[in-house]
C-alpha cells in the first residue's frame, strides 16, 4: 500500500483537484443565492450571478454622469497609480537601505535599531499623522503604502545580503574589489531575485493599506467604491469589485514571477 505522503497527482490531476474546491464554493454560492431569491426576490445580501454581471457591466461601460468617467476604469487607474507609486517608493528605499545595511556592518549598527522600531509601528496607526502632514490627497495614501511595507522589505533584503556566504565577500576582496564594487557587483545582483520575492510577499499588505486609505479619505479608487456602495448594501457591486481586485493581485504576482524567471536565470538553476 502506497503511503499517503507518496501519493503525487499528475499535472492534469493537480489541475482537476485544485478546481474542485473552487467549483464547490461557486456552486454553494449560486445555490445559497437562488434559495434566498426564492424567498425574497429583492434580496441584496447574496446577489445572483446575473445581477452581479449586469452591475459590473454597468460599472465597466457606462459613463458616470457626475464624474464624466467610466467608474470601474477610473477606480482601477486611480488605485493602481497609488499602489504602483507606493511600491516604487518602498522598493527604492528597501533596495538602497537593504544594500547599505547588508554590506556595511557599520550601517547595520547605526540604522538597524531605528528600522526595527519603525517596522513594529502599525502603519494604519500613523495614517492620521500622514493625513495631517501630507493632506488628504494622493501623497498620504502613497506614503501609507510605502511606510507600511518598506521596513519589512528593507529588513528582509538586508538579512538576505548579510546571509550571503562570507566566502564571496572575501573572494571579491582578494580579486581587488573595493567596498563600492562589492556592493554593486556582488551584493546588488544577488539581491534582485530576492527583491522580487519580497515584493510579491508585500503585495498583500500593500493592497490592505491602499484600500484602508481609500476607504477613509478618497473620491475615487477601488477601495473607495466598495466602502461607498456599502451604504446601499450593493453586494452586486462589492463582490465583483473584490473579484476584480483579486484578479489584479494575481496578475501582478504572475508578472513578478515571470520577471524573476526571465531576468535571473542563474537564481533558478541554484534553486533546483
Amino acid at each position: 500500500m502506497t503511503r499517503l505522503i507518496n501519493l503525487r497527482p499528475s499535472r492534469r490531476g493537480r489541475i482537476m483537484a485544485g478546481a474542485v474546491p473552487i467549483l464547490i464554493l461557486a456552486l454553494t454560492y449560486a445555490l445559497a443565492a437562488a434559495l434566498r431569491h426564492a424567498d425574497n426576490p429583492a434580496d441584496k445580501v447574496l446577489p445572483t450571478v446575473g445581477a452581479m454581471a449586469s452591475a459590473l457591466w454597468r460599472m465597466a461601460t457606462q459613463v458616470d454622469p457626475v464624474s464624466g468617467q467610466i467608474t470601474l476604469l477610473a477606480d482601477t487607474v486611480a488605485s493602481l497609480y497609488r499602489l504602483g507609486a507606493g511600491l516604487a517608493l518602498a522598493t527604492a528605499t528597501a533596495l538602497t537601505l537593504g544594500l547599505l545595511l547588508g554590506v556595511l556592518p557599520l550601517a547595520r549598527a547605526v540604522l538597524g535599531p531605528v528600522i526595527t522600531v519603525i517596522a513594529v509601528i502599525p502603519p494604519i496607526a500613523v495614517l492620521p499623522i500622514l493625513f495631517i502632514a501630507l493632506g488628504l490627497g494622493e501623497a498620504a495614501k502613497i506614503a501609507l503604502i510605502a511606510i507600511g511595507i518598506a521596513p519589512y522589505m528593507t529588513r528582509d533584503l538586508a538579512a538576505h545580503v548579510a546571509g550571503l556566504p562570507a566566502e564571496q565577500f572575501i573572494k571579491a576582496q582578494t580579486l581587488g574589489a573595493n567596498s563600492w564594487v562589492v556592493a554593486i557587483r556582488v551584493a546588488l545582483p544577488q539581491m534582485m531575485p530576492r527583491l522580487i520575492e519580497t515584493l510579491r510577499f508585500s503585495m498583500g499588505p500593500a493592497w490592505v493599506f491602499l484600500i484602508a486609505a481609500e476607504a477613509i479619505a478618497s473620491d475615487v479608487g477601488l477601495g473607495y467604491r466598495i466602502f461607498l456602495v456599502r451604504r446601499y448594501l450593493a453586494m452586486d457591486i462589492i463582490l465583483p469589485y473584490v473579484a476584480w481586485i483579486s484578479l489584479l493581485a494575481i496578475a501582478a504576482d504572475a508578472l513578478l514571477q515571470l520577471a524573476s524567471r526571465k531576468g535571473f536565470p542563474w537564481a533558478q538553476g541554484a534553486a533546483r
Partner: protein
Amino acid sequence: MTGQENANAPQSLPKVAPLLQFRNVWVEYGEKVVLERVNLEIPAGAFVSVVGPSGAGKSTFLRLILGQEAPSRGTVLFDGARMAAECGPDRGVVFQRYSVFPHLTVIGNVLFGLECAAAPVLGRLFGARRRAALAEADAMLDAVGLSSARDQYPAQLSGGMQQRLALAQALVKHPRVLLLDEPFGALDPGIRVDMHELVTGLWRDHGLTVVMVTHDIGEAFKLGTRVLAFDKRRHDPHAPQRYGATATYDVPLLRKTGDARMANVTQNTAGPAAASDHPAESA
C-alpha cells in the same frame, strides 16, 4: 624561537627573503587560545600543505595569511612588511564552497577580478579594454580547461568544474600567494586526481606560492613541497582551550626541491619533481 625557526626552514631552498614570515604569532579569542608560538617562514615558490586534526587552527592559520584575521600577539610579515589585516589582490583564495559568484557566468567570474582592478567606480569595462580583459580571461579559462563552459552559470557546473573556475578566477589576478582551503574536500576521488594534476601544473607554470589546508594526508604529501602539521603541543584536560596549536611537524619534501635523500617520502610526484628550480625562477 629563532633557533627553532632556522632548524625548520627547508635547507635546500636558495637564500632569498621569505615571502611570508610568522614571528611568535598567537591567535586568541579571550580565554581560548587557537594558535600559539607559530614561527615559520614560507619562501616564494613553495607549495605548503597544512594538515592537522579539526580545531587545530589550520583554517585560522590560512585566515592570517589571507588577512581575514589579525594575530593577537606577534607579527606576520608579507614580503618583509607587516601584513594588513584586510584581504587584498596580492592573495588569491579558493574555498571548499562558495568560491565563485553564482550570478555571473563562467567568463564573467574570471573577468570580475580584471574589472575590479581597472574600473573601481563602475566595476565594469567597456570597448577595447573589455576586449583585452576578455582575451586574458579566455586564456585563463583555457588553462583550466573550462573554455567549453564559458557562458554557463556556476549552478550548471559540476563541483570539479566550479573549483576549476575558482582557480581560474583567482589566478587571473596573478596573486603572490594562492591559498587553498580544503579545495578538493567536496569532490569525487577521480575528479580529485584530475584537480591535483591541474593545481600542480598551474603551480609550476605560473610560478605560484601555494598554501593549502587539507584533511587528506595523502594529498598533502602528493602536492606539497613541504608539509606542516598543526596540533597542540600541550593539553590540559581540565581546560582544553588553555593551550593553542602550532606547527608540530614541519616536513620539507626535499625531493621536490632538488634533494634526493627524501625521495622515498613521497609517491606519485612525477609532475612536481620537474619544479626543482622553481623558487629561483619566481624570486
